[in-house]
């Protein structure tokens, strides 16, 4: 699948060391053992997408799980009569498309590049197969994925509290 202006290519053998280095510089991949990083690098594709590229569509199958190497992707949801609401943005080091690893493998929001984006992408089906076959790889990757999702959950809860709105006014009258 290629959207307008989106390009993707496999990692060439001579690039593996560079890709391992890129994984090692991200929050997601820094703690992995070198062999895990190398294994992931071998499965990876480099995806480039200009601003405006729709990378995921809410409710559709998530084909890829990616580590953002550069740029910013907005996770958005459409609310009738309210329009498009940006819930979160993901940037360098963040995980994009975790739903590719979690049944039913459908995207939980729309994802749109708001800047030129460079991703290290893994085909969901291929990565799942690799994780099923290699328990050591799975034991490294899954906790990190879970941690990324848990952080999103915590952050969303904080957002839900709408703390700065409470700062502004209260339901009760105050003299100040």
């Amino acid at each position, binding site marked *: 699948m290629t959207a307008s202006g989106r390009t993707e290519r496999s990692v060439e053998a001579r690039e593996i060391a560079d890709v391992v280095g890129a994984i090692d*510089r*991200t*929050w*997601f991949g*820094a703690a992995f053992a070198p062999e895990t990083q190398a294994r992931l690098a071998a499965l990876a594709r480099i995806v480039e997408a200009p601003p405006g590229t729709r990378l995921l569509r809410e409710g559709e199958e998530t084909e890829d799980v990616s580590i953002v190497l550069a740029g*910013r992707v*907005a996770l*958005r949801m459409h609310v009738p009569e309210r*329009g*498009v*609401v*940006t*819930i*979160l*943005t993901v*940037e*360098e*080091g*963040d995980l994009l498309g975790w739903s590719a690893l979690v049944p039913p493998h459908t995207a939980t929001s729309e994802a749109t590049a*708001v*800047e030129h984006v460079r991703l290290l992408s893994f085909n969901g089906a291929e990565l799942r197969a690799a994780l099923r076959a290699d328990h050591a790889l799975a034991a490294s990757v899954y906790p990190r994925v879970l941690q990324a999702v848990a*952080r999103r959950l*915590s*952050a969303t809860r*904080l*957002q839900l*509290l*709408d*703390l*700065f*709105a*409470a*700062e*502004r*006014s*209260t339901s009760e*009258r*105050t*003299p*100040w």
Partner: protein
Amino acid sequence: MKSEPAEPLASEATARGGPWFLLRANLQVLIDELRADGRRVIGPTVADGAIVYDEITSADELPRGWGDEQGPGSYRLRQRDDERLFGYNAGPTSWKRFTFPAVVPLTIGRRDGRDVSFEAAAADRPRLAFLGVRGCELAALGIQDKVFTGGPFADEDYRARRAAAFVVAVNCTTASSTCFCTSMGTGPAVGPGHDLVLTEIDEGFVIRAGSVEGVDLLARLPVRLADAMEIFRASKAVEDVATEIGDPVATTGLHDRLLAQFDSPEWARVAERCLSCTNCTMVCPTCFCSSVVQRSDLDGQVSTSERVWDSCFTAGFAKVAGGNFRSRPRDRYRQWLTHKFATWVDQFGSFGCVGCGRCIAWCPVGIDVRAELQAIAPPLELHSEPATLPPAAATPGDFSTARVAAVRHETADVRTLVMRDVDPAFLAGRPGQFAMIALPAYPPLPISISRFREDAIELTIRAAGPATAAITGLGIGDGLGLRGPLGTSWPLEQAAGRDVVFVTGGIGLAPLRPLVDAVRAQRDRFGAVRVFYGARTPADMLYREELDSWAAEDGIELALTVDRADESWNGPVGVVTHLFDRATWDGSRAVAFVCGPERMMQATADALAARGLTADRVFVTLERHMECGIGLCGHCQMGRYFVCRDGPVFSLAELGDVFGREGI
């Protein structure tokens, strides 16, 4: 009706203080002599079914032959079968009514066109004599002396009233079932601090002097030397009372025991009965919380601010514009009890309770503080060490005035006022300090100073209610009352040579901005400087036009995020911690300064800890309800701290586990 002391002996020359003996019939002479000294005599008298303290001119007004029966939630007068004048126990009034009156006028504020002015209100402070001060009550006066005059800031009204009071104390020869002075070390024998002390026996009083003024007065009374039997009967009566009371409250280790019970289920249990009626704090002789209220004429041109009694049990006591720190009765009961028996020790070196039992008798539902202490913090062997308080800023004067020189619209409801003609003390203020600001007819409120300039300060204020709406509505040339600078400042020196992290949200950037200014001014002294700033929407960000220059001119990494945005915003969306959750920088060399809603600061503290920032290198500034700004009114208390005086800037290590705890 004066007479010389009988049989003055050489052996008494060094002991003019006594013990002497005064016939009950001659107590009137004492009252007359006190009045002859120009004093109003305040003493016990029967009114409204209780023995209260009020002005008396005659010994006939004393509660001759009256006693009382007290228990949890109960107080009844009963007729004694003797002629005792002091045969009763502590009643609903305490002497603080006269040293710390329920209403004291402070200042008169006037608004005349664009000018504002503040002048001290005249206070009536008569010379008083207190007749019948018990041991527990004298200890209570001593405790309030420490609260109001023993710290870095003093309440001058209290000091003047207290200095003008002559104290005739009375050793207790009777006790009620609610008494526990013996446990608190305050009675039944009177301690130091009195001018005269009486012990009542059948025919009259054994009387001693405790001060030079007491010796002088004693010389004018018709007394004779007390005989050995009188002295014995007097001391025996007091000893018997001590035995009768026993030791109902185990105070050893109480401080630590109570502070270990923040999460006890007993708080909720006692709160099921507690009505939050404030009776306990009104009758308490040491409770000192107050508020400043405005009594304004109808058009708001002239207003008198008054200091009035308040209570940590009132629903709004710990309320700020964004919420209420102690919304539940259990939080308020815990605040009261832990203050009286634990954090008071840290703050003032003694318990805040003298064991008078008033709170037990006058609690409408009969909550007995002795039983609650036993249930919540049962005795065990521990030793408590009073903590030392951090240094506080210098004593401020009353409101000075300043003028608005410029107004900047930061967001729809936030304005920055540039204030000129400020008291020079403000220009020497430090980042993190705040000012109490006031317009006549509105309550004063604490506002962080958002920039220090050579000849001005800036105040960034959100219109959240009537007072802030009026202040943000001021125009160029308008006057405003200021007190300060107050509170502690950000400890920037601790960041020298290190990386610096600022994490802030909403209007929380305002108290940090002077610190960012200081870092920018000496940029070479710090390593990497990162600012993480979150707002609700892009339109809610403060100081937009200058934020970019921080990054461009001073090598500061600036990351902005918003909680919600439409498609026009291409920057990050998410909570502020999301900005550095995914980062890989090492925080083990960094110092962090954090300001925002408390819940946000907690999440930030966790995220910073994950980056290697230990609690001693993370500094936060707290928001609390403040009325006085100098640690005297009690509103902003948080554990052993008064946030206005000991803070508002604290390290997480200082705050310990009270930070982020509900209901503190």
